[in-house]
């Protein structure tokens, strides 16, 4: 039950994009089409889960025993960057079809602050490993949900007569704002 609550809170109540403002760059950048945004969501789910497990273990078994927690930022970003590279290489060999689907999005993920953000958040919240994994999966689902809905709306936006000054980024941001308003409706259910 506790784990279900973590997932619901991460997906709806504290949606990582619309309530916590993490991962805005891919949210705005890779949301032109529903198909590509699903791919991005899948890649985020994959990397976020692995990255959270690895960084959690590094915190527990390297940084804390040596009492160098202040190295967290440097250690985490290096681990995430190399992890993404490794995932790319392994995926290419092991599952070419999955690589086909996620490949182009993987390099972009290194600079996705949602990955680093969740890795730091699970430490701040003092989650145990299983809770951290559940939290990461929930946040990745929340990211995918937000970006897919947003992409669906944006596909329709192209056909509408948007005022000249609001074309492009401003109109997209207004839509994101309305989406954030909708997600605020979930506040208080957990």
């Amino acid at each position, binding site marked *: 039950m506790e784990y279900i609550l973590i997932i619901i809170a991460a997906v709806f109540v504290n949606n990582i994009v*619309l*309530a*916590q*403002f*993490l*991962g*805005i*760059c891919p949210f*705005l950048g890779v949301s032109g089409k529903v198909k590509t945004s699903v791919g991005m969501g899948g890649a985020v789910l994959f990397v976020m889960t692995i990255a959270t497990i690895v960084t959690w273990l590094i915190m527990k078994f390297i940084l804390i025993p040596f009492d160098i927690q*202040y*190295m*967290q*930022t*440097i250690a985490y*970003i*290096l681990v995430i*960057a190399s992890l993404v590279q490794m995932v790319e290489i392994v995926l290419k060999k092991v599952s070419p079809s999955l690589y086909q689907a996620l490949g182009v999005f993987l390099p972009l993920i290194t*600079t*996705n*602050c949602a990955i*680093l*953000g969740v890795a*730091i*958040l699970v430490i*701040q919240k003092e989650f145990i490993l299983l809770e951290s994994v559940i939290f990461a999966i929930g946040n990745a689902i929340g990211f995918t949900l937000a970006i897919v809905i947003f992409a669906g709306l944006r596909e329709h936006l192209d056909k509408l007569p948007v005022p000249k*000054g*609001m074309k492009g*980024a*401003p*109109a*997209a*941001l*207004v839509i*994101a*704002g*309305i989406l*954030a*308003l909708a*997600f*605020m409706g979930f506040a208080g259910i957990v």
Partner: protein
Amino acid sequence: MNNWKNFTKGFIKENPVFILLLGLCPTLGVTTSAINGLGMGLATTFVLVCANVVVALIKNLIPNKVRIPSFIVIIASFVTIIDLVMAAYVPALYEALGLFIPLIVVNCAVLGRAEAFASKNTVFSSLIDGLGMGLGFTFALTLLGAVRELLGSYALFGYKFIQTDGILVFVLAPGAFFGLAYLIALMKKLNK
């Protein structure tokens, strides 16, 4: 003159937030008040200037293939410094900015300047560029913070004008998107 142009381009013409749309996560996340925006902007400016200078200093020593990881390590070191300094001297602001301080490391505006400018230019012009871009970023965050604070709680830098609740939605998450949307539209208009 050239240095002056280099310095001022970050404010309006190539503003990292309004025109280049870089670093939007902290822009949206911390600007619930003008003072938070200012604090976040200055922290980012510090990292941007230091990283730009160091990258420009050692650009010839870094092999081309590993330059991005090297830049990230340099940036992360300065982020750690500002993280510890802020925790020690401005604990209230540090609490308010929270997660977004360590996340300066993935702010694409910082890595973007290191890669696009500092790795190709002299130390001094990189310093000017970092300072201009950083202050442009600070300007954007403070402006958005001021707009949201003004509408959301009828206050500016903590000073309250009208003693009632404001339009609450502007200090909540959706207000960040709406505020930024209209500021970008306005800046586009001004830039023409």
